[in-house]
C-alpha cells in the first residue's frame, strides 16, 4: 500500500501539480512488473524443457496452454477493467455459469447458434448491468453487490438447469472448439481478439483514461467532469460482456452448459490481475500483466500434468507464485520510486 500515494496523482492528468512520479517512469514501472512475470514464465519454460522430455515446447503443447488460458483469460480482461476502475467483481464465475445455462436450455437451443450466442452475451451484460446499477446508483459496496450476485446467479443457474448438465446439440457451437485456422484453435483467436480490443480501449480511448481516473481518485475524476456513476456501471457491464463471451467459449469447449461452470473463476481472475501488477485499490494497472498472470497459472497446471504430479502440489505452487510475484513487484516498485 505504501506506493499508493505516489501513484494516485499520475492517474488524473488534470491533477498534475502534486505529481512526483512522471508518467514515463510510471510506464517503466509497469513494464518492470510485466518483466518480472515474463521472467517467471521463462523459468517455468526452462523447468518444462528440463523435466518433460521435450513434450513441453512443442507447438501442440503451447497451443494447448493458450487454449486452456483462453476462457479464464477473457474473464480476466473484464476483471482488469473493473479493478483498475476501483471496483471488484466476485460474480464472474457465476455469470459464466448462468450465461452458459441460459444459452443452452432446450428452448434457446431450438433457435440456433446465433440466438444462443446472443443470449449468453445479453445474460452476461444484463447481470453486469444489475451489478453496476446497484454499485453506482445504489451506492452499495462492490464487494457486497457482486458477492450477492455470485450466490444469486449460481442459484438461478441451478434452478434453470434443474442442476443438470445441459448438452449442446447445436453443432456450430461445438465446432467453435474444434475449428482451427492456420493450425491455431479459434478459441485462441477469440482470446487474442478480446485482449487486443481490451488493450486498445484501456490505453487508447477516453473510456480507458476515464477508467484509470475513476479508480485512482473518484472525486478528482468527478471534478474533472467525468460522470463517474455512469462510467462505473459501464465497467460492470463490460465485465458481464466478457463473462458472456467466456460462456460461449466454455459451451463449445465442454459441449455443455452447466451451473458448475466457471467454478472459482473470480479467484483465478483476481489472482491473475493482482500478480499482473494491477493495484487492487484501482487507479493503476496493465492488461498485459493480467494476461501474463493467466498464462503463468495455466502453464503451471500444464507443467504439473505433464509431469503427472498431483493436484494438491499444484495448488501449493500457485499460492507460492502469487506471494512471490507480489513480493517481486513490491521490490521493483520500491527501487523504482
Amino acid at each position, binding site marked *: 500500500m505504501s506506493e499508493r500515494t505516489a501513484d494516485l496523482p499520475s492517474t488524473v492528468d488534470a491533477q498534475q501539480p502534486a505529481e512526483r512520479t512522471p508518467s514515463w517512469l510510471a510506464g517503466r514501472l509497469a513494464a518492470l512488473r510485466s518483466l518480472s512475470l515474463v521472467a517467471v514464465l521463462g523459468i517455468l519454460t526452462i523447468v518444462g524443457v528440463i523435466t518433460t522430455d521435450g*513434450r513441453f515446447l512443442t507447438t501442440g503443447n503451447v497451443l494447448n496452454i493458450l487454449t486452456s488460458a483462453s476462457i479464464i483469460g477473457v474473464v480476466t480482461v473484464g476483471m482488469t477493467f473493473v479493478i483498475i476502475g476501483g471496483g471488484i467483481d466476485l460474480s464472474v464465475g457465476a455469470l459464466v455459469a448462468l450465461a452458459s445455462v441460459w444459452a443452452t436450455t432446450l428452448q434457446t437451443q431450438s433457435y440456433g447458434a446465433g440466438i444462443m450466442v446472443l443470449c449468453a452475451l445479453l445474460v452476461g451484460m444484463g447481470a453486469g448491468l444489475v451489478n453496476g446499477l446497484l454499485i453506482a446508483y445504489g451506492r452499495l459496496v462492490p464487494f457486497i453487490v457482486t458477492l450477492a450476485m455470485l450466490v444469486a446467479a449460481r442459484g438461478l443457474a*441451478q434452478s434453470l438447469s434443474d442442476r443438470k*448438465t445441459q448438452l449442446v446439440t447445436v453443432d456450430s457451437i461445438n465446432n467453435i472448439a*474444434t475449428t482451427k485456422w492456420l493450425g491455431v484453435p479459434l478459441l485462441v483467436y477469440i482470446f487474442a481478439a478480446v485482449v487486443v480490443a481490451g488493450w486498445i480501449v484501456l490505453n487508447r480511448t477516453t473510456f480507458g483514461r476515464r477508467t484509470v481516473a475513476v479508480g485512482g481518485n473518484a472525486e478528482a475524476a468527478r471534478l474533472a467532469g467525468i460522470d463517474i456513476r455512469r462510467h462505473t456501471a459501464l465497467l460492470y457491464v463490460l465485465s458481464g460482456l466478457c463473462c458472456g463471451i467466456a460462456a460461449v467459449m466454455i459451451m463449445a*469447449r465442454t459441449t*455443455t452448459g452447466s451451473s458448475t461452470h*466457471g*467454478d472459482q473463476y473470480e479467484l483465478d481472475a483476481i489472482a491473475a490481475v493482482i500478480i499482473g501488477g494491477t493495484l487492487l485499490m484501482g487507479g493503476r494497472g496493465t492488461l498485459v500483466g493480467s494476461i501474463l498472470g493467466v498464462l503463468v497459472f495455466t502453464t503451471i497446471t500444464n507443467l504439473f*500434468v505433464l509431469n503427472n504430479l498431483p*493436484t494438491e502440489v499444484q495448488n501449493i505452487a500457485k499460492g507460492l507464485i502469487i506471494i512471490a510475484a507480489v513480493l517481486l513487484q513490491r521490490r521493483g516498485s520500491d527501487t523504482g520510486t
Partner: protein
Amino acid sequence: MSDLGSVGLGRRGFLAGGAALGAGALLVGCTSNDAGSAPSQAAAPAGDNAKPGKTVTIGFSGPASDHGWIAAIGKNAQTRAKAYSDVKFEPVEATNDVTKQISSVETLIDKKVDALVILPFDGKALTAVGKKAMDAGIPVVNLDRIFDTQQAYRTWIGGDNYGMGQSAGNYIGQRLKDAGISNPTIAEVAGIDNLQLTQDRSRGFKEALAKFGFSVKARQAAQFTVESGQQVMSNILQAQPKLDAVWNHDDDQGVGVLAAINQAGRKEFFMVGGAGSANAMRLIKDDNSVLKCTVTYSPTMASSAISLARLIAQGKGMSDLVEKEVPSYIILASATVTKDNVDQYLPLGFES
C-alpha cells in the same frame, strides 16, 4: 456379477412390477418392497412390506448438488418417498458446508422425525450429529459417505468404491490382454482427490490392473465437473501422445473428458466411465465414441435408503430375509455396463 438387484432397486418401474433383473443375491435387492422385484421364494412377504403402515416422517439431508450424481440422489429420495402413502418427507436445504449441514440435521432432530436419511458432505465431520440423532432415539440411515462410528447410524447403505475401481480395472486389463498389448499406457482421470471414495476407487483400479501386470501411467484428479474433466483430459492427452486405455471416475465429468478427446481428434484408445449416467450409456449403446464401458455407482441407492428408513421407522424387517430387522450394513455392487448389456441398465442411468 449379481448386482442387478441393487441397481434396479430404486427404480419406479419396479413399482409397476418390472421383470426381476438378476439373481438378486444382494440384500438390497429385497428392500424394493414390491412383489415384482423380490426373489422368487419371498414374493408374498415382500408384498406385505409395500402395504401402507403407520405414517412416518423421514428427514433427509444431503450435500448441495455440484454434479449430476448428487442431483439424482436428492431427486431419487424425493421420488421414492412420494411413492409411499405412509411417508411424510422432510428434506432440509442441501449444503456443502458441514456446519450448515450439522445445524440442519439438528433441526430435524428437534422436530422429532421418525427416521433420518443422511448423505453427509463429509462423513467424519457429521459423525457427531449422527450420534446425537441416534442418542435421541431417531434411527439414522447413513447414505454412502460413512460416519466414523457405528454408533452414529442404524444402517449404512452405500456403493462399493473399491469394487468400482476393480470392475474398471478388470475390464481394462482383460480387454488389453485380449488385444495382446504387453506394456499399455493407461490413464486415470480421478474425481476430487481428498475424498476417501476417490482414493478407494483408485486403489481398486490399481490392484485390479496389477493382476494383469499393468499399472497406471498417468493419473490426474478433476473436480467431478464437466469443465474440470475437459481441462484435465486435454492436458493428459498432451502429455501422452499415445494411450491404450482411460478410466474416468465419473460420467458427469466424463462429458468434458470426451469433449477434450474429440477436440484433440484422438481415438487410438478406449475409455471406461464411472457412476453410470444415462448419457454415458447411450454413448456405449451407439458405439461410435471411445467410451466402451461404464462401471456403476448408482444414485438409486437414495431410493433404497428411503425404503430402509421407512421399514426401520415402522419396525419392519426386509421381508425376504428371515430376520425381523433391517440389516445394519449394506454394500451395493458395481456393475460393468458394456454394449452387450447396456439395454438392461439404460433405464436406471441418471440424467447428468
